[in-house]
């Protein structure tokens, strides 16, 4: 009986010793936020000649098949007392699993621990706010669309998510110019899509081979798929459709002599109203039309409104109008929907050459405020 008890005591002592040894030498790895970014910490970091990157390495977890080939994260190591820290070069990504491989070098071999970065709820899903031009009838040689989103979007899937359907709901093949550099604004909220100019322009091979993308007399639908991911990786709340009919090609340059300017009264902040007989390019109207004074220095500060299917431009000044002479100053590269500018038509037919106006940078229309 006593022998057995002694045996048990010995076993218990041995077990306790082992446990003690294990506790004393075992290293742990944690992930924590420091200064807004995630950092990995290993402790205790054994003193001695072991290199930090032999002790701990962080990987993206690509699954068992891929993991063998994936290199570790770029980053930097620091040692503070008994703590080894690894700071990733770039912020960790929500929805990605990270795998830390660590080895205390005591012979028990490498261990692994995985960490997931919690998905932050980025707020409401994005939507398409508007597509310009807003008109229901577009010319056969329509040049582009602007897609406006309510939140920043992700790049590289635009041409997978935008489709043009004919009257029967069938997709038109390759109507748009597909560029690797998608044409976004800096905020990632506006995308410019060009109709393939090689099909629109006369005399080029694709125009002969494939024809114009949209035809006079027919109807089409521009479809935006809701699967399009925003910059946070979430799909749109819903898709968007724009139905339109197509009229004849427009080969006439816009003329300022066709514009009508309605002047406001002095002393108030009513807008000056400029109306034109055809829809013009929405983005260029916002950028290339300004109100200046007789002194022609900096344009007046105020707010621009474009409405009535981009056939009306209004300017409300920040301060009430002093009486005097003003100018609507228009950049001559302002385009209509078919890309004709004040300077020249989109395509110059050299056989029937239209007189090209001298291209100054701007043209003006004067008006009086009294």
């Amino acid at each position, binding site marked *: 009986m006593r022998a057995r008890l002694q045996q048990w005591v010995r076993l218990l002592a041995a077990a306790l010793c082992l446990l003690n040894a294990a506790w004393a030498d075992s290293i742990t790895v944690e992930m924590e936020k420091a200064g807004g970014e995630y950092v990995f910490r290993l402790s205790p970091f054994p003193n001695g000649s072991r290199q930090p990157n032999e002790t701990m390495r962080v990987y993206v977890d690509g699954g068992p098949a891929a993991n063998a080939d*994936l290199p570790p994260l770029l980053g930097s190591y620091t040692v503070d007392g008994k703590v080894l820290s690894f700071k990733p070069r*770039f912020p960790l990504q929500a929805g990605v699993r990270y795998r830390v491989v660590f080895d205390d070098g005591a012979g028990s071999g490498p261990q692994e621990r995985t960490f997931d970065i919690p998905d932050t709820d980025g707020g409401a899903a994005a939507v398409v706010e508007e597509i310009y031009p807003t008109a229901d009838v577009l010319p056969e040689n329509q040049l*582009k669309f602007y897609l406006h989103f309510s939140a920043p979007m992700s790049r590289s899937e635009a041409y997978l998510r935008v489709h043009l359907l004919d009257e029967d709901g069938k997709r038109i093949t390759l109507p748009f110019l597909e560029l690797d550099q998608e044409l976004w604004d800096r905020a990632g909220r506006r995308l410019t899509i060009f109709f393939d*100019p090689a099909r629109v*322009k*006369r005399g080029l091979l694709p125009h002969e081979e494939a024809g114009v993308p949209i035809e006079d007399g027919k109807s089409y639908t521009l479809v935006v798929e809701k699967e399009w991911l925003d*910059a946070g990786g979430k799909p749109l709340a819903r898709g968007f459709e724009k139905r339109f009919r197509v009229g004849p090609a427009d080969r006439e340059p816009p003329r300022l002599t066709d514009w009508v300017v309605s002047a406001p009264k002095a002393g108030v902040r009513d807008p000056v109203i400029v109306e034109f007989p055809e829809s013009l390019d929405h983005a*260029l109207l916002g950028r290339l039309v300004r109100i200046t004074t007789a002194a022609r220095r900096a344009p007046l500060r105020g707010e621009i409104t474009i409405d009535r299917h981009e056939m009306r431009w209004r300017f409300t000044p920040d301060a009430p109008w002093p009486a005097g002479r003003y100018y609507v100053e228009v950049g001559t*590269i302002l385009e209509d929907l078919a890309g004709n500018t004040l300077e020249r038509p989109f395509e*110059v037919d050299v056989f029937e050459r239209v007189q090209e106006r001298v291209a100054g940078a701007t043209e003006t229309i004067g008006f009086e405020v009294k």
Partner: protein
Amino acid sequence: MTLSRSRILALAVTALALVAAPASANHHTSGMKAGKADLRSAGPLAFGPQGILFAGDSNGAAIFALDTGDTKPGSSGSVSVKGVNEKVAAMLGTSADQILIEDMAVNPISKNTYLSVSRGRGPDAMAVILKVDAAGKISEFSLDNIKHSKATLPNAPAPDAKDGRGGSLRVQSITDLAYVDGKVLVAGLSNEEFASTLRSIPFPFSAVDGGTGVEIFHGAHGRFETNAPVRTFVPYEIQNEPHLLAAYTCTPLVKFPLSDLKPGSKVMGTTIAELGNRNRPLDMIVYAKGGTDYILMNNSSRGVMKMSTKDIHKYEGIKEKTDITGLPYETIAELKGVQQLDRLDDNNALILVQDESGAMELKTIALP
């Protein structure tokens, strides 16, 4: 013993030479300062002389000249990096669908490959440049403390530009970039007006010179003339005169002499080929084989095209509808999915090719 006059002169000249020599060895880096190169977006890459890497930054509206210091001559072996996009993503701590490899350029001296990468796909994506050596090892080419200079393009964003008031939404996407004869040529496409911009910026960069813009036009069957954004171009000498071979966002492939790029001028390219529907070159390189020069172009959907430059100097343009459509070319259909193409050496090119699963491989191919 007094020194003879000629001895003194000889000594003086030697002394001057010793003082002057180190400075002239790297005159290309004159004006460059060490510091953080603040690229706001990763775009096209092109090498200049002496390991200087030019990088286009569309969002920042700038061209950076980066002194890589990578000037030790290297020999190009056979490069093969499978799953390069997954490896790059892993190093940047993210998944492969969250990076975009924007461009690739081989350093003609060291034969190391440089990649410009967007880490992230939204407007806040970070610009990263990575280096891949001949053994396939990938490392970061850090921009934190690098000797560099910068040329600002005319529509650089104002520091306080706000949305909704116009101007700040416009971006010139830089589509191609090359160094020729002391100038950096930049092709850009606006996200608003349908305009061509080919800009010529003298290098070394000076603080105020954003270069001169030139309007590029092309004809169509001798009848229609339109403004035409240049998408990609390659310098090429025709009968000892520097030219550019340019592919438009439309399909004509044109040539024009570099001397035509005068400030404010309007340049009509001479059409040397009409490439037809869905044939839009992404990259173009020129190489020699069997005594003839060839242009090699990749088009991700249609494979790689090889075009002979034989008789290119005779081309006055495709004038009539009935004309044969320009220089003959063949499609090398087995090279599909080639996203990037650059010269490696006289006999080989480096390609970045993507398969149906989306996996990308960096590998060497013999010039066809």
